[in-house]
């Protein structure tokens, strides 16, 4: 796998083709989704009244302050967690536990320590992939995320950012109808982050899959997404819901310096700020009943 030459640089479409049976993107919809943790008196709503329709092939970025429930929403979408209220459906049918139509790139790399980087990526291959096809696909993904020279290393022998790229490659290996990415570029340095964002867009262009992308980074959201949703608390009731939906203008790749994006960026940053202000007001309005049993 280390015998790479500049001549046969893998392209995203080659990766898509290598996957064989090309899975088509599927729409995913959330209807009245809510999630509360705890039982009895200590029930704590985290999400409520989430209504969202994501079209097949669309990229939606999810923004929101830390702890507002972004990961929870993504886990529900992937069938890793069940909503307390409402339903999530992929292509019209309700999401099953550990739904095979979606692939998750977790917030933590979650690599198997006893497997090599290549072996960890192979874990993402759809069940029943032929051995040779699988190996070739993994090799291409390794090149794509820039880890070809580290194929035989163990996770403990690579950096955090490399582990995260491995995790991203593992999710891509699945060739899913819905790709769920939880801060996939969080541990990357600025340059690698830009490269990986472009890589994601390349893969998406070669084979449009529906992408839900959680991020902390407003610029990243604007660069990658067709739509950005902002999760946050209103203040009057516990539980985050969609505060703003922003349709990002223009087609990708977007000019990172455009004035239009700069304006949207300001609005979204405001949104994150207004959210903090709003919840402060909420606390003031209900001084006698603190609604978070923190």
């Amino acid at each position, binding site marked *: 796998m280390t015998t790479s030459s500049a001549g046969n640089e893998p392209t995203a479409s080659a990766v898509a083709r290598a996957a064989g049976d090309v899975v088509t993107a599927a729409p995913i919809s959330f209807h009245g989704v809510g999630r509360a943790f705890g039982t009895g008196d200590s029930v704590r709503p985290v999400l409520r009244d989430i209504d969202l329709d994501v079209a097949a092939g669309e990229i939606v970025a999810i923004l929101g302050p830390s702890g507002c429930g972004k990961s929870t929403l993504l886990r529900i979408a992937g069938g890793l967690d069940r909503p307390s209220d409402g339903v999530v459906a992929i292509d019209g049918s309700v999401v099953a536990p550990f739904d095979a139509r979606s692939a998750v790139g977790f917030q933590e790399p*979650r690599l198997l320590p006893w497997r090599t980087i290549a072996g960890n990526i192979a*874990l993402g291959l759809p069940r029943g992939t032929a051995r040779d096809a699988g190996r070739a696909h993994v090799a291409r993904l390794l090149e794509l995320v820039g880890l070809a*020279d580290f194929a035989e290393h163990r996770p403990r022998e690579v950096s*955090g950012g490399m582990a995260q790229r491995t995790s991203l490659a593992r999710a891509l290996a699945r060739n899913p109808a819905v790709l769920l990415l939880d801060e996939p570029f969080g*541990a990357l340095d600025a340059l690698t982050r830009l490269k990986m964002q472009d890589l994601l867009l390349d893969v998406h262009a070669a084979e449009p899959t529906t992408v839900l992308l959680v991020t902390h980074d407003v610029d990243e959201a604007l660069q990658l997404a067709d739509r950005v949703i902002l999760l946050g608390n209103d203040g009057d009731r516990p539980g985050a819901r969609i505060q703003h939906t922003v349709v990002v203008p223009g087609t990708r790749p977007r000019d990172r310096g455009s004035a239009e994006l700069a304006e949207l960026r300001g609005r979204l940053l405001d949104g994150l700020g207004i959210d903090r202000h709003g919840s402060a007001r909420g606390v003031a309005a209900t001084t006698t009943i603190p609604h978070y049993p923190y």
Partner: protein
Amino acid sequence: MSKADAATTAARASASVDREFAAPVTQDGLGVAVAGQLGPSGVDRPERLPGSGIGGPAGEGTALPASSGGRRRLVDRRWFRIVGGALIPVALLVAWQLVSTSGLVPVSMLPTPEMVWLAAVDLAERGLLGLYVAISTQRVFLGFAFGAALGLAFGAVVGLSKLGDILLAPTLGAIRAVPSLAWVPLLILWFKIGEDSKVILIAIGAFFPVYTIVAAALRHVDRQLLEAGRAFGLRGLSLFTTVQLPAVVPSVISALRLALAQAWLFLVAAELIASSMGLGFLLVDSGNNGRIDRIFLAIILLAVLGKLTDSLVGLFERWAVRRWA
């Protein structure tokens, strides 16, 4: 991949197509390692990367890789470990020789090393030494094999299945609470004084460490890894072989090590009480006849055999840790 290959690989990293990716992460080393804050795998150590997948035993924090040509510390050297480990036994032997021949202690209390050696030669000439060692070792291995196999099976059921835990754990816990020697009269009544009763007692001794440790280890497999495994389509057997089994391999091996020690313990218990052969029998018989030289011989043999079998598992453990951890 040989070391030379690894070196060329590393050298080529900057020339390959993925230079853009490889460069910032590997070449600046710690400079960009802040990026690793979320990853469990720590910081970049470029000098360790080439070939480190093959190199030394896992988890050994040797300051310098052996390939760098630097001096290895004394305590990491093989000959030093062997000499260091033999130091105290040799000193004990010398002290024993000095004290026993000095007349300070009567030889009926402390035989000389020579007397013990002669006792060994005497028993060997009568064909008893080999027989006793063989029969005791056989009992230990049989009992250990049955006990450990059952321990693995029950540990797996209790550790993997909630229902198995609910149904089996309390009963097994109660059985474990019975002091081992309490089984002896019952086993002798049921299985008579033969091989069966001894092997079963040893199996009981080997069963519990394996069962307890394996069940606990399986229960505590990293939930995040399990969830990731499930999210990527692993279920049942495939989840077990891909995630759970590799995760518990180190615990399983230390459990086996413990079980083996326990098996020798129970061997002596079984042979002390009812037997006509074996090292335990040699102990009681010599005690009854006042043959202190043979008592010493039996104890030394138990120490050596126990250490030897433990080292065997230890070798297996080192291989497994390198392979799985």
